[in-house]
């Protein structure tokens, strides 16, 4: 596939890996924020190509993982209603709520449908005028334009039976929360290439300056990630702290202008709870007042749900990069993809699930007291 396969070329990857090894003179800890990058790193074994001095941490780059428990419970409550067709991306179906997940609601007879795009959900609303169609609008800034368009079209066309349960999260506030935390070990970031495709990267410039960290906007294929790491290492070695753009084939500094315009019309910045981390101010998107009629939480009166997390799950610490999955006592024993305790094990992008799937053999071979540092992975 063009513009995909070329970025998986083994020879070029080796060249970049060698260059990273030669450039690295001391230990560096780099965080990649995006679940898609986590997936690629683990699936292609990219961290095994890096020198042992480089520690790659997996950040909270999984909007599925960070969707608060309350939202899952609201989704389950709405989806269980007989008058509702509940539409969602596939990832969300197995994320555990307090008692059930959406998959269980589906098995119990709820009309829960997986869609590829929010536009598909809107079409379902047009085709089922006597049902309420609700779409679970989660995601980072990357997904927000699609969700915005669906709501915008619903308003323009006057589709009364469509609403969205919104739980969007924004990356820069999460990065700032990590950088400003006492426990922070992150020295450089690979910023999420598709988030920046939409938003541009001007928001990262103040972060790089304030916290003196290099931030490299990076793509998702092996060569992208290797080049991003190389660029980040060079900055670290040279004492620079700038925002650079590795993913220039998709990302421009100003991002996608029409998308940002519709986002500011349909959404407004709100405080948002991140599962496992807690509330981060101004870190989420909610519907703007002009679109409040399409808010499913209001329409179905489920705004007041509260919820309790499983105490054994340390996904918050994993999401912040403070712990690695294999350091959790429950990893691979009580907590597995089949019986997840928290979202990082359910979502295919969650750090715990990715580790379990691709690297479990190493984890099982080493004693559980493995330190947080150590070779790349």
């Amino acid at each position, binding site marked *: *596939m063009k513009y*995909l396969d070329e970025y*998986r070329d*083994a020879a070029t*990857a*080796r060249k970049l890996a060698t260059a990273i090894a030669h450039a690295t003179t001391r230990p560096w800890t780099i965080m990649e924020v995006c*679940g*898609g990058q986590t*997936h690629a790193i*683990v*699936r*292609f*074994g*990219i961290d*095994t*190509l890096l020198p042992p001095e480089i520690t790659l941490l997996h950040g909270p780059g*999984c*909007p*599925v993982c960070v969707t608060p428990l309350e939202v899952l419970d609201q989704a389950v409550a709405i989806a269980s209603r007989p008058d509702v067709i509940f*539409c969602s*991306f*596939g*990832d969300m*179906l*197995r994320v555990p709520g307090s008692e059930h997940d959406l998959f269980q609601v589906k098995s119990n007879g709820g009309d829960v*449908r*997986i*869609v*590829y795009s929010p536009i*598909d*959900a809107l079409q*379902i609303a047009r085709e089922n005028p006597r049902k309420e169609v609700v779409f679970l609008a989660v*995601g980072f800034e990357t*997904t927000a334009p699609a969700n915005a368009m669906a709501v915008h079209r619903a308003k323009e066309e006057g589709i009364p039976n469509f609403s969205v349960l919104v739980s969007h999260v924004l990356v820069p506030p999460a990065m700032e929360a990590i950088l400003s935390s006492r426990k922070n070990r992150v020295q450089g970031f690979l910023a999420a290439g598709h988030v920046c495709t939409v938003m541009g990267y001007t928001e990262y410039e103040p972060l790089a300056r304030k916290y003196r960290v290099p931030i490299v906007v990076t793509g998702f294929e*092996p060569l992208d990630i290797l080049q991003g790491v190389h660029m980040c290492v060079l900055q670290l070695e040279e004492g620079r702290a700038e925002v650079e753009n590795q993913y220039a084939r998709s990302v421009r500094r100003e991002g996608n202008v029409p998308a940002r315009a519709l986002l500011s019309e349909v959404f407004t910045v709100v405080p948002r709870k991140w599962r496992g981390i807690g509330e981060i101010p101004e870190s989420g998107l909610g519907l703007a007042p002009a679109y409040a009629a399409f808010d499913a939480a209001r329409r179905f009166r489920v705004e007041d749900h509260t919820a309790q997390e499983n105490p054994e799950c340390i996904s918050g610490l994993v999401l912040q990069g403070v712990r690695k999955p294999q350091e959790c006592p429950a990893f691979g024993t009580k907590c*597995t*993809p*089949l019986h997840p305790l928290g979202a990082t094990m359910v*979502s*295919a*992008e969650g750090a715990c699930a990715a580790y*379990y*799937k*691709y*690297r*479990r*053999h190493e984890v*099982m*071979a080493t004693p559980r007291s493995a330190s947080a540092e150590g070779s790349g992975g």
Partner: protein
Amino acid sequence: MIDEFALQCPIPLDDNPTVQMGHGGGGRMTRELIERVFVPVFANEALAPLHDGAILPPARGRLAFTTDTFVVRPLFFRGGDVGTLAVNGTVNDLAMCGARPLYLSAGFILEEGLPIKDLWRVVLSMGAAAKAAGVRVVTGDTKVVDRGHGDGIYINTAGVGVIETDLTIGPGSIRPGDAIVLNGDIGRHGIAVMAEREGLQFESEISSDCAPLAGPVQDLLRAGVEVHCLRDLTRGGLTSALVELGESAALPFRIREDAVPVRDEVRGACEILGLEPFSVANEGRFVAFVPSGQVELARATLGGEGAVIGSVEPRGTDPPFVRVETPLGTTRILDLPSGEQLPRIC
């Protein structure tokens, strides 16, 4: 298909266009359904008496016996339907034992309200698949469940076949050094089915690869290949087949990702939906474990589509993992997908 139905409609549409509870009651309606839908399609001597059981001639050789139940949704997809699956699935399980499939039973659970013409279409598919595979459906059963308690049609087929080779074909016969051969590209069935489901529509030229495998297996045996083990790839795809065999045989495998054929259409669909081709379902694919010295013979026998995808490693101190060499030259471990693979945005 619909034209053919109009000509041969067994039960006049205006009388009983849909399945009723009475069709499962064992009375006149059941008899009518059997005689006008099932018997004409499956017609054979063993079935004809419509007795409690079929009486079959003795076989020369060890017998293989298997059963499976088919609950696919949607019922009809490009390249097949639940009926094609029900026949080929069981035929293929027999083929994986090294057996020549002979007879099938077919048990139907029909949902009240199912259009008879859908049932007819499925049964015709079964008839065609049975003929292509060289098997006969010799006995069966029909039950009807209340509307809302089934996905239209569930089919159970059990099958019996005769093993005409002295080889013991199974995971216990896998040896270190064996070559792992695959009979074609993977992932077509899963993508074809997904393409039909609401919300995941795309223009797709992908048809299910649902096909009987007895032929290629018999070809291998006749060519003199000392087949150690066979496994067809179904749900869970190549991943499940290899991981389960590795555990049964307690031996590690090494696979080269680049050597596994995947068509562009399957690749494209997997990339946009975030699926792993290795874990997508198939219905007409199998892996064969053969001695390394016979790998060229095996590949040549399978024809153009056959591919050597890896080998069996010596037993080591590690647990018997399936290691995949990625296009980058790094290694990852294959693990079973937990449950149905779902499209993702992350």
